[in-house]
């Protein structure tokens, strides 16, 4: 019974209507499945929205999740990604007293830059594969980040 649990990325195309998001998240919570991250935004020029859900589970669990998602009336399509481009954004707030050159260089290495500055803090942005964002966030610990926000992953099948 101990099937290996792996990270999975699922995209769901849904009708953009009231309570559709809770239908999706209810399905996960009601069955004890965890959501690692979830992003949602309308698809331009359509009545649909696209969700990208990062979750973890065995092949069997993911198959059930996919089928159960599909069973929801407002769900048009469900993709379980294997070959995809995946990106995630992170914003980090640093004290302005930290080494801004170092931070700026690091951001560049992760497709980012310093996007805002004020009297006391700067805000840096990176956009990269989720595991690279993990990496970035562990590297910048030494610069005393005050606040970190991640967007959750978005993905497109190749």
């Amino acid at each position, binding site marked *: 019974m101990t099937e290996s649990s792996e990270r999975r990325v699922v995209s769901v195309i*849904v*009708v953009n209507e*009231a*309570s559709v998001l*809770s*239908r999706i998240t*209810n399905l996960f919570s*009601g069955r004890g499945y965890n959501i690692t991250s979830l992003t949602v935004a309308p698809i331009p020029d359509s009545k649909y929205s696209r969700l990208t859900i990062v979750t973890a589970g065995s092949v*069997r669990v993911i*198959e*059930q999740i996919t*089928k*159960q998602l*599909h*069973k929801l*009336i*407002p*769900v*048009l399509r469900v993709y379980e990604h294997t070959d995809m481009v995946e990106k995630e954004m992170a914003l980090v707030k640093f004290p302005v007293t930290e080494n801004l050159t170092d931070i700026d260089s690091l951001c560049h290495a992760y497709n980012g830059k310093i996007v805002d500055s004020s009297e006391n803090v700067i805000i840096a942005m990176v956009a990269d594969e989720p595991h690279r964002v993990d990496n970035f966030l562990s590297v910048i610990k030494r610069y005393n980040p005050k606040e970190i926000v991640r967007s959750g992953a978005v993905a497109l099948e190749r």
Partner: protein
Amino acid sequence: MQISGAQMVIEAFIAEGVDTVFGYPGGAIMNVYDEIYKQDGFKHILNRHEQASVHAAEGYAKASGKVGVAMITSGPGFTNAVTGLADAYMDSVPMVVVSGQVPMSLIGTDGFQEIDAIGISRPCTKHNYLVTDAADLPRILKEAFYIARSGRPGPVHVDIPKDVTAQIAEFNYDMDVNLETYKPHVKGNPRQIKKAMEAIAKAKRPLFYLGGGVINSGASKEVRELIQKTGIPAVETLMARGVLSYDDELLVGMLGMHGSYSSNMAMSETDLVIGLGARFDDRVTGKLSEFAKNADVIHVDIDPASISKLVNADYPIVGDLKNVVTDMLKQTDKIESENYESWRETINNFAELHPLTFHEDSERIKPQWVIKRVGELLGDSANISTDVGQHQMWAAQFYPFSRPNQWITSGGLGTMGFGFPAAIGVKAAAPEKTSINFTGDGSILMNVQELMTAVEKKIPVINIILNNNFLGMVRQWQTLFYDKRHSETDLSVQPDFVKLSEAFGGIGYRVKTKEEFDAALKDAVEKNVVAFIEVIVERFENVMPMVPSGGSLFNMMLLEKKETK
């Protein structure tokens, strides 16, 4: 035409061919009840509790194959109905439940009798709607009926705020339902069907495993024909009772926790499970890793999510059973009935070794006898509802079912209190049949107020209470698995069931002998009014065989052999 939201509900019901609505009025749904008062397109049955309204609608749907309809008010009216929604969802019962809601301006203010109804009904309905504009109501009601009855059927909940029922808007019901995101598979994949038929032709010990989906799909006739043509034996789940007639030689019996020895052994020995509209429920499979261990599995179901959910399907076929089985019937030429002769013999030997039976007692009536006796006296002329517990299992085991939609029970959710209101719905759907509800002394008290409904509307349901002064099934588990610690299951303190029925205007009988029972049943059928027949039965009778929870299907506790002189 320009009409109010409340009028739209009435017009939509009439357009859908609804002839009976079960419900209970209240503040938020009053506008609709005002329109019910004015119309004569359908009749309304006032239950005495909202849970009963929904169960009655379920009974109506299960007996007629049509969409059941219930109507309730907001807040407590709705929360009372939730058990019925969950019950219908688990058993795939087509149903539309309309509830009132506080006016839009009060939503989210903790208004009087406000509750987030669609938030609560979401996990126990196939779909639900909060109507925010009367202009959407015709489309929503049309979709609700369509979703309820199509694909894998289920309950749909429509929550309508009070001001929306008063709002005037254009009503046009003459439209096609076009849901881009909901298109159930009807036709099975021909290649998969062909492969499945080849697998059947090659199998040595194939077994049909029939579920409630056969009844939902209206495919009993086709399934009977397929079984007849192939000579392959069949087992039924609890929900599939009546798909095959009790006297069909190829019907092995019911399988599962309280299935017959021969059915459970057949399932354990088969080399090819042919699952039709069944969902491999834990009460059927027992320990999953041991279930039909050496068999390949063909699984036909309209719900892709049911396939390979618990047991891996080697031949998955998504489609409507009636359609798929009709296709299967065209490809039976390579299947030779004679090839299964020894397999059928093996199964017959199982049945002879441990037949489904019980021991008579000269002192007290055995509950199983009551079921058998009703079967002998009424047989096909009765529809059978039940509550939940020992009596339900005995009814499933011993009643001679002869047709689909004859058997109405709460299988998936196991709702005590289901039987009486369901039997009211059954009688409303099929007035020409006697409506029997087998119940227990525990279950009957969970919706006993329905005596009033049945008396008022002259719905002559006969409730046969198998009284063992116990919450019998729980008592059985306590006896077997909790060292006889009968915690809170002794129901020795009871009402006088005869007087109880009479207090509402029904009739009652208390019987202790077989002769008294025959006379009471005959009298109740003739009098044609709602009745309680309380039968004092053996207190400590257990439902056997029994597969202990989580055990392997072939490891059954069996009826103790009686000492022979």
